[in-house]
C-alpha cells in the first residue's frame, strides 16, 4: 500500500519533518527529527530506485486526478537518480550537521535551521519528482526561500548580503521560468510536461514557444549559476553555515540542472526545429567560459570555501557542456559529472567545515600544515580535490573521460583539448590547497586544532570514499547515467 505512494512520500516526509522541527523549538529535538526524516526519506528514495529499475517509469496522480486536470508525479531513470542523490546527501548532511551547527548558530535558531534544511530538501525533491511545470515552480520557490534563510543564518554579516543578492537573483530566475511556463500554457493549454511534449509536436514554428524556451533556459541558468550568471553563488556558499553549504553545493545547482535537462530534452527535445534557438551553441560557449574563467578565479581566492565555490561554477560548466553536446556519450558524461561533482564537492565542503570547526578559519594562509593535526579531514579534502582535477582513480576522471569521448563523437576535437586544458587550472587551485595543507610547517591555527570528531569524519569519508570507489568501479554509475541519457534522448530506458 505504502509502496504505491512512494513518489509523494519522499516529499511529504521532509515537509512533515519541517513542521515538527519548527514546532519542537528545541535544537536537539529538531536535529533528531531532521535526522529521522532524512533517513526515512533516503529509504523511500532507494525503494523508489529499485522500483524504477524493476518496473520502469512510475506515474503517480496526486489525489487521483488525471494528468490533464491534476498534478502528475513522474519518476523515470533520470530523475530517480536525482532523488536518490539529494536524499542520500541530505541524510549525510544531517549526520554531519549536529556538531557543526552547535558551533556556528545561536541556540534559539537551531530548530529553525533544521526546519529550513528539511524545507529546502523537500523543495528540491519536489522539483525532481514532479511532472508538472507550474508545480516545479512552486517547489523551486519553496527550496529557494528556505535557501535564502539558510544562508542568512551564517555567522558573518556578509551572509546577509549574500542571501539578499541570491534572493533577488533567484526570484528573477524563477520569474523568468514561470513566464516561460505561462507562454507554453497559453500555446498548449496544459502544464503537464508529458502532454506539453505531445502537443508541441502538432505546433509548427510558433514564436511564442521559442520565446518560452529562451525564458525557461535563462531562468534556470540563473538558478544553476551558469557563467556569467554565477556571481551570487560564491558569496552564498562561502558565508552560509558549513552544513548548509554542503547541502547547497552538492544538491541545489544539480536539481536546477536536472530541470534544465528535463525541459531541453523531454519537453523541447523533439522540436529543435521549433526552437530554432542555438541554445546548444550558446551553452557550449558559456560552459567553456565557465570552465576557464571561473576556475581561474578560484586560483586567486584566499578563502578555501570561495575556492570551492568558484570551482563549483567551473564544474557546472562541464555538466552543462555534457547537456549541450546532446549525444549519448556526452550527455552520460554530463550526468555522471553531476553525480560525481555532488559527491566530491560535498566531501570538500564537509572537510572545510570540519576545519572551520576546529581551526576557526577557512583562510588558506592561516591553514598552513593543518594536515599534520587533522590528517583525515585534510586527506578527504585532498581526495575531493583530486576528483575535481580528474585524476585517474577518482570519479572525476571517469566523467571527464566520457565528456571527452562525447566531444570527439560530436566532432569537436578542439573541445576535447579544452576540457583537458581546463583541468590544468584545477590542478593549480587544488595544488595550492594541498601545498599549504600538507607541505608547510604548521601555523598557529593548525597547532591549536585536533582531528575532527567522528560524526563529521564519517559522512565526509562516505562521500570521499564514493569519489574513489566510483573512480575505480565505474561500471555501475556509468551504467545508470547512460540509461538516464538514453531516456532523455528518447530511446528505450
Amino acid at each position, binding site marked *: 500500500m505504502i509502496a504505491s505512494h512512494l513518489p509523494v512520500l519522499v516529499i511529504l516526509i521532509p515537509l512533515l519533518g519541517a513542521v515538527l522541527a519548527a514546532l519542537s523549538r528545541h535544537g536537539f529535538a529538531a536535529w533528531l527529527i531532521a535526522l529521522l526524516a532524512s533517513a526515512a526519506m533516503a529509504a523511500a528514495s532507494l525503494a523508489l530506485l529499485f522500483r524504477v529499475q524493476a518496473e520502469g517509469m512510475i506515474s503517480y496522480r496526486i489525489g487521483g486526478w488525471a494528468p490533464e486536470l491534476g498534478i502528475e508525479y513522474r519518476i523515470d531513470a533520470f530523475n530517480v537518480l536525482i532523488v536518490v542523490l539529494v536524499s542520500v546527501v541530505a541524510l549525510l548532511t544531517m549526520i554531519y550537521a549536529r556538531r557543526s551547527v552547535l558551533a556556528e548558530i545561536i541556540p534559539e535558531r537551531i530548530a529553525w535551521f533544521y526546519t529550513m534544511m528539511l524545507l529546502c530538501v523537500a523543495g528540491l525533491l519536489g522539483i525532481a519528482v514532479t511532472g508538472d511545470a507550474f508545480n516545479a515552480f512552486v517547489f523551486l520557490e519553496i527550496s529557494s526561500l528556505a535557501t535564502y534563510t539558510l544562508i542568512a543564518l551564517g555567522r558573518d554579516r556578509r551572509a*546577509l548580503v549574500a542571501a539578499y543578492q541570491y534572493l533577488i537573483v533567484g526570484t528573477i530566475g524563477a*520569474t523568468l521560468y514561470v513566464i516561460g511556463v505561462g507562454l507554453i500554457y497559453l500555446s498548449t493549454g496544459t502544464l503537464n510536461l508529458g502532454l506539453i511534449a505531445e502537443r508541441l509536436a502538432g505546433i509548427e514554428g510558433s514564436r511564442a514557444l521559442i520565446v518560452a524556451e529562451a525564458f525557461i533556459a535563462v531562468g534556470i541558468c540563473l538558478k544553476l549559476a551558469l557563467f556569467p550568471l554565477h556571481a551570487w553563488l560564491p558569496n552564498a556558499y562561502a558565508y552560509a553555515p558549513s552544513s548548509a553549504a554542503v547541502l547547497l553545493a552538492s544538491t541545489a545547482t544539480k536539481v536546477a540542472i536536472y530541470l534544465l535537462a528535463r525541459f531541453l530534452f523531454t519537453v523541447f527535445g523533439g522540436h529543435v526545429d521549433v526552437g530554432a534557438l542555438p541554445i546548444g551553441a550558446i551553452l557550449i560557449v558559456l560552459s567553456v567560459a565557465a570552465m576557464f574563467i571561473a576556475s581561474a578565479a578560484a586560483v*586567486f581566492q584566499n578563502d578555501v570555501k570561495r575556492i570551492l565555490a568558484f570551482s563549483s561554477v567551473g564544474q557546472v560548466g562541464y555538466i552543462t557542456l555534457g547537456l549541450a553536446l546532446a549525444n549519448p556519450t556526452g550527455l552520460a558524461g554530463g550526468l555522471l559529472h553531476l553525480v560525481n561533482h555532488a559527491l566530491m564537492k560535498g566531501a570538500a565542503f564537509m572537510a572545510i567545515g570540519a576545519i572551520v570547526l576546529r581551526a576557526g578559519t577557512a583562510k588558506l594562509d592561516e591553514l598552513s600544515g593543518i594536515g599534520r593535526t587533522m590528517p583525515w579531514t585534510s586527506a578527504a579534502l585532498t581526495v575531493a580535490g583530486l576528483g575535481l582535477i580528474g585524476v585517474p582513480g577518482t570519479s572525476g576522471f571517469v566523467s571527464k573521460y566520457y565528456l571527452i569521448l562525447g566531444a570527439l563523437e560530436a566532432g569537436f576535437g578542439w573541445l576535447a583539448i579544452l576540457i583537458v586544458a581546463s583541468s590544468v587550472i584545477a590542478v593549480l587551485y587544488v595544488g595550492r590547497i594541498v601545498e599549504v595543507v600538507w607541505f608547510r610547517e604548521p601555523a598557529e591555527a593548525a597547532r591549536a586544532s585536533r582531528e575532527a570528531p567522528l560524526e563529521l569524519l564519517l559522512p565526509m569519508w562516505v562521500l570521499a570514499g564514493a569519489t574513489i570507489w566510483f573512480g575505480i568501479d565505474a561500471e555501475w554509475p556509468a551504467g545508470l547515467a547512460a540509461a538516464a541519457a538514453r531516456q532523455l534522448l528518447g530511446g528505450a530506458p
Partner: protein
Amino acid sequence: MIAHFSQIATIFLMVAGLYVVMARGNMVKKLIGLSLFQSSVYLLYLLPGKVIGGTAPIIGAGFTVYANPLPHVLILTAIVVGIATLALGLTLVVRIKEAYGTIEEDEIIAKETPKTRNGPGRGGDAA
C-alpha cells in the same frame, strides 16, 4: 493598440520592474522593482484566462461560457510565493541595516572591499 492593451501593460510592468532592480542601489527599491516584475507575471497568466461574457466556472442553468479557472488558481499560489519572497527580502534588509547601518548596495560593497590594492592573493574574501 487597444486590443493588445493587456499585453502591453504586462510587458511594461515586466521591463519597469527589471529596470528598477538593475538601476537602483537601494535595497528596498530593488525589492519594489522585484515585486513589480512578479506582478507582470500575474497579468500574463490572468488576462488570457478572462473570457468575454464568461462567468465563474460553476455549472448552472443558463450559463454556457465559463472563464478558465486554472490560471486563477496558479496565480493565487504565485501571489503567496511573491508575498513570502517580499517579506523575507524586507526582513533581510532590516538585518542588513542593523549590521551595516546602510541599505545602499554600493556603500556595503565599499565597506567590504579592502582599500589597499597591492597585487594578487589579497582581498579575495571580501564581499
